């Protein structure tokens, strides 16, 4: 009877066993491999950056060509909107100055101001299981873990891993994502939970919830992870009365993202 293991099949079986072992470790201690992940992402980022460039240009080109008719219609609409917005701008300036003077009167502690870092998406893990993106900015650029990430339309996720040159964004649609939100009109709080599909659901709603379809949702700022007031999406209800969120951001066309950073004012030591 021949010996059932030759060299290659032995190493194959040993590596399969090792993979199972790693899976177990990854399941029970998911953060154990964070540094490995960021190291690999840092190593691959130059290649991913250059390879993704032509694809993004092609995608922009097709988007522009197919959208010419839409552009004309949008232009007319935007001109109309612009006239209205100019009037609103003047109103906003007045309200802003009034708001500042009232805050001063109340001695209210204002939230820290935020600055942002813009970055281009270089890799996408948009598959059936994990919803995340990789951007070529990291600790060198001042990115910190937990920072909120926005597209031009609204919230898309938060930073979960930061390497020297790259960072991973966990999208709000991922099953591991939970975002505290508030309904803009009614002030009701809830949690938006990712389901690995394009429409996250609302959980932890009160029994007598008065949230109606189409209500605008913003981040509540609870937990301190996301700042208050970031636009998130609108409420939709499915046939089983489960409340979901149609996000403002279109995840299919995201190319540039903004990473919010707390702008902490520099403190100067007093010279004695």
């Amino acid at each position, binding site marked *: 009877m021949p010996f059932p293991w*030759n060299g*290659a*099949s032995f*190493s*194959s*079986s040993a*590596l*399969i066993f*090792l*993979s*199972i*072992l*790693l*899976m*177990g*470790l*990854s*399941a029970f201690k*998911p953060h154990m*491999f964070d540094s*490995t*992940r960021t*190291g*690999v*992402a840092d190593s*691959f980022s130059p*290649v*991913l950056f250059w*390879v*993704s460039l032509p*694809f*993004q240009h092609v*995608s922009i080109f097709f988007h522009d060509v197919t959208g010419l008719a839409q552009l004309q219609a949008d232009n007319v609409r935007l001109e109309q909107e612009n006239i209205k917005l100019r009037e609103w701008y003047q109103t906003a300036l007045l309200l802003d100055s009034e708001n500042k003077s009232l805050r001063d009167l109340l001695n209210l502690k204002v939230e820290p101001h935020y600055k942002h870092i813009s970055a281009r*998406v*270089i*890799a*996408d*893990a*948009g*598959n*059936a*299981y*994990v919803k*995340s*993106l*990789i951007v070529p900015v990291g600790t060198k650029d001042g990115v910190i873990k937990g920072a909120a990430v926005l597209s031009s339309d609204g919230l898309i996720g938060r930073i979960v891993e930061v390497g020297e040159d790259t960072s*991973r964004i*966990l999208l709000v*649609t991922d*099953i*591991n994502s939970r975002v505290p939100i508030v309904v803009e009109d009614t002030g009701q709080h809830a949690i938006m939970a990712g*389901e*690995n*599909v*394009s429409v996250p659901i609302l959980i932890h709603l009160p029994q007598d919830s008065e949230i109606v379809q189409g209500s605008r949702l913003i981040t509540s700022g609870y937990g301190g992870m996301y700042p208050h007031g970031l636009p998130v999406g609108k409420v939709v209800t499915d046939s089983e009365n489960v409340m979901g969120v149609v996000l403002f951001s279109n*995840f*299919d*066309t*995201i*190319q540039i993202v903004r990473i919010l950073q707390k702008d902490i004012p520099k403190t100067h030591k007093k010279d004695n």
Partner: protein
Amino acid sequence: MSAISEQMEMFLRICVPYGVMFMLFIFNMVFFSTPLSTTIEIPFVVMVVYYWSIYRPTLISPLLVFIAGLCLDSLSGFPIGLSSFVFLVIRKTVSDQRLFLTGQPFMVIWLGFGVVSALSALVQWMLFGLMHMHWTPFQPVIFTIIAGVLLFPIIALLLNLSHRALPSLPDQYSAVK
């Protein structure tokens, strides 16, 4: 001098399939901004592992497959070891059947890929669900399988072209699994 140029030629010939493999590996990760990109992932690496497990298993050693899986898991945010496990099982199962598969017409190879790709996606989906205690929707997995099966002939053609660049190996080497 001619020995050096022969060695150089051999090296360059071997570089061709590895270059194609690396390109497909990167394509697995590159951000394609299309309306379907968030729901469909094209399993390029599964295609590569399947193809070479049939036609030249010595080209993709178990260690290389393991490392490719680890890199893919690290880049995509998958649980570490999941892709390595799936790729290694595909490599072992397919290379065990290569004596049968090598002589078959392309339709059989294509059908075989359909089965392998469906089973690997199913295993990946089940393991991911078990590890996260949450069953993700199955519809995107079906889309992924269909996209992979539809694109396989094109990728197989590309791999076949890179296969032609390879120097032919003596029988004792090509028979090693």
